[in-house]
Structure formats: C-alpha cells, structure tokens
C-alpha cells in the first residue's frame, strides 16, 4: 500500500466516490418508483403476472457490460454519458424489485386485507395505508439486494470510461499498481455496507409494529 498516493489523490477519490454514490442510489429510487405499480399489477392480475415477471426476468439476463454498450444507440446518448449507467441500473433494479413488490403484496395476510375492507378502506387508500406498509419488510429485503449489487455493477462501467470508483481499478491495471485497486475495493465494500444499513434502518422506521428481535 502506498499511502502517499492516497493522500495526493484524495480529491479525485472523493469525486469518484460521490459519482459512485449517485450512480448507485439514483437508479434504486427510480427503479422502486417504477417497480411499485408494475409489481402491484403483477400481484393483482393472474394473466399479466407471468408476462410482467417474464419480461423483467429477461432484462435481468442481459450482462451489464453489454447493456452499457447497447443503450447509447437506443437512448440517443453519447457512450460516456452517465445517463446510460443510470438507465442500465434502473433496468436491473426494476427487474429485481417487480418480483419483490409482487411477492410482498402476496404476503399480506388475507385477514388483514379483509379487516381493512371492513373498516372502510377502499382500493387505492387500502393499498397505500394497509397493504404496502405490511409488505415493507419483504420489499426492503429486495431493496437491500438491489442496492448492494448496484454498487458492484456500477464499477463495471469503468470499462466504458464513466466516472466512478471503477476507474481506480482500470487505472491500477494500466499502471500495474495495487494501491488504487485496493482503495477502490475497500470503498465499494464500505459503501455497500453503509447503503445496506440505511435500507435496514429505513425498514425499522417504517415498520414500528414489528418486534425488535425480528428486525435483527
């Protein structure tokens, strides 16, 4: 390890880290916003369920490097545009979360839904104030997987040249120099652990009725 190098390059590293955070988190937020209605549709209808889950499953099979290359002509963007990475990761996040949201809504006990209906909750109101909150633990389990794997996948975009921690890996390979690679791996791991922890925390906040022992 060359600590002088870390000191000299700290400004660049911080910029790359911030880009990495943005590129991992933004797709999860957009992806969740898209996956909620899609997952609800899959949960509600038997016919569309296999169609929706099948299509998103197919999208998930496309390797990330291939998707980073295929998106620019489809979106009309330049190859270095960070938007490609955001869209690609949003696609993966949606593919992962649609199933989770659908499973989460399926996991709401029938008695709970019936009780809510009997108390006068209808349609959208029942979905937002009863079914979704009860499904939060299942959805946040999927969210944890999405966030953690996004942090890893973002770094692959370095092969195209997008700004984020992955550039430390390619830089290390070109210079035959281990320090940037180790710094990059450690920062990716720390970022994954922190974001994972945030999802766990959010889950606890949103489900105060779940006993503490279950959360742990």
């Amino acid at each position, binding site marked *: 390890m060359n600590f002088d190098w870390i000191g000299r390059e700290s400004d660049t590293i911080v910029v790359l880290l911030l880009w990495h955070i943005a590129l991992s988190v933004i797709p999860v937020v957009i992806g969740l916003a898209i996956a909620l209605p899609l997952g609800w549709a899959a949960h509600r209808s038997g016919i569309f369920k296999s169609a929706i889950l099948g299509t998103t499953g197919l999208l998930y*099979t496309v390797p990330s490097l291939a998707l980073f290359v295929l998106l620019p002509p489809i979106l009309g963007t330049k190859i270095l545009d960070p938007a490609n990475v955001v869209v690609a990761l949003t696609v993966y996040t949606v593919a992962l979360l649609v199933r989770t949201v659908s499973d989460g809504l399926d996991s709401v006990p029938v008695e709970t839904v019936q009780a809510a209906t009997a108390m006068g909750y209808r349609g959208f109101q029942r979905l937002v104030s009863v079914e979704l909150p009860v499904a939060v633990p299942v959805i946040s389990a999927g969210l944890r997987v999405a966030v953690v794997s996004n942090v*890893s996948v973002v770094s692959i975009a370095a092969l195209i040249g997008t700004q984020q921690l*992955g550039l430390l890996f390619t830089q290390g390979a070109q210079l035959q120099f281990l320090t940037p690679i180790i710094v990059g791996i450690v920062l990716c791991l720390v970022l994954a652990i922190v974001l994972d922890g945030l999802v766990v925390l959010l889950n606890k906040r949103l489900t105060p009725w779940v006993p503490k022992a279950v959360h742990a």
Partner: protein
Amino acid sequence: MIDYLIDPAHWTGSDAIGVLIVQHLVYTGIALLVAALIGVPIGLYVGHTGKGTFLIAGVANALRALPTLGLVILLVLIIAPVFASELAFVVPSLIVLVLLAVPPIMTNTYAGIRAVDASAVDAAVGMGYRPLKVLFAVQVPCALPLILSGFRGATLQVISTATIAAYVSLGGLGRLIIDGRAQNDYDQMMVGAVLVALLALLVDLGIGLIGRFAVSPGLTRRRIRSATRPTTPRPTTPSPASSALVAP
C-alpha cells in the same frame, strides 16, 4: 453492425467470432463445474445437518458486495507473475468466476434442502431410509427446482463476469467489446454486446428446459403424458400424496 457480422474476415483466425463464442462457453462451463463441486456438497451438508447456517448467509452477502472488476484486476496483478504463460490471465479470471458462482449454488442448495416438507423426510425415515438415501432419494429431488434456480443465477453471473474479464486479456465475447472500445470501433462493440446478451438468454432458456425435464412431475404438478393412457379420465386435482411433497 450487419456489415461487421457478414464480413468473412471476422469469422476466421484466432479471434473469429465462432472461436470467441466457444471460448466464452468453455470458461463458463469450467467455472460452473468447479463451483458446483464446491457449492453443492457444502449446501447439501449444511441443509441436511443444519450446521453452519450462519456461514452460508454471511459469505453470500459479502461476495455480492465485492466489485467483480476490481477483484479480477487485483488477482491478475497478484497471480500473473507466478505463471509465465497465457495461464497468467486465465487462472485469476477463472478463480473470480468460481468465487462468484459458488454462493448462489451453495445458498440455493441449502435453501432447497431446508424447504423440503418435513413430513416427506419423516415418512422416508419411517420407511427405514438411511440418512444418505433420505438425502439423495427424497431431499435432493424435492429441492431440485431451487437448486437449478441457483445454477441459473450462477450461470448469468459467470457469463456476465467472463465478459468483463476480457479487460485482463481473457478470451471470449468480451474481447469484441473491450477491443472495440480501445479502437473506437463501435460496430464491433455492438456485435459483442448483442452476442453476449443472446448467449446469456439462450443459456438461461437451456437451463429452464433442463428443469422442465429433470424436476419430478409430482413437484410441478405437470400432467404426465404416458403412452399407456388410462381410458378413464384422470382426476384433475392432485392426490393428497403428491401435494404433500410440494414445497410451499
């Protein structure tokens, strides 16, 4: 892109498209085989005995967070000086591919065995099956759908990461993308990307098909079409005996 594909020059020589596809499949096959030899026995052992559960969850989560690109480059820089030949690039890449393929295979094997209906296992024990026979005649067949879905996840991961490993001179379809990027040859990159995506889809479909034939019809509630069909119509509801075996 079509021009690139129909140009005969891209179909001959050591970096012909056909050769790259075969290389990609060979790397994927080797990595999956080694990963299965490691992951399946551990998953079976932990699932059957219930020992070491904490290990499985911890390893799987930690490996998901590891950036694959960084890991491949790190291993090449560390291991490459040890090997003189071309193995210097192949061995580190294969190690990473195996490392990524083991967790999904291991965790799904474990989860599959755990999810087998306890009454089916009890029945087998009651019929005098020895532990190993319970494992291979009851638990493994019942767990097969989950075990196969673990292989599916592992295969996708390996095909995807083998593409990335082209950056450290591994062969395979990733070559087209990486070399194309270096030479600003966008057509070549597109061909590589489309072929990798197609390869992943086809292999995924293939594993799905294997599952259809390998998984016992008692589990999938698939109707058996036998040559000697009884003249009386079969009951459409599954018999209690077969539904008891279905994992929830």
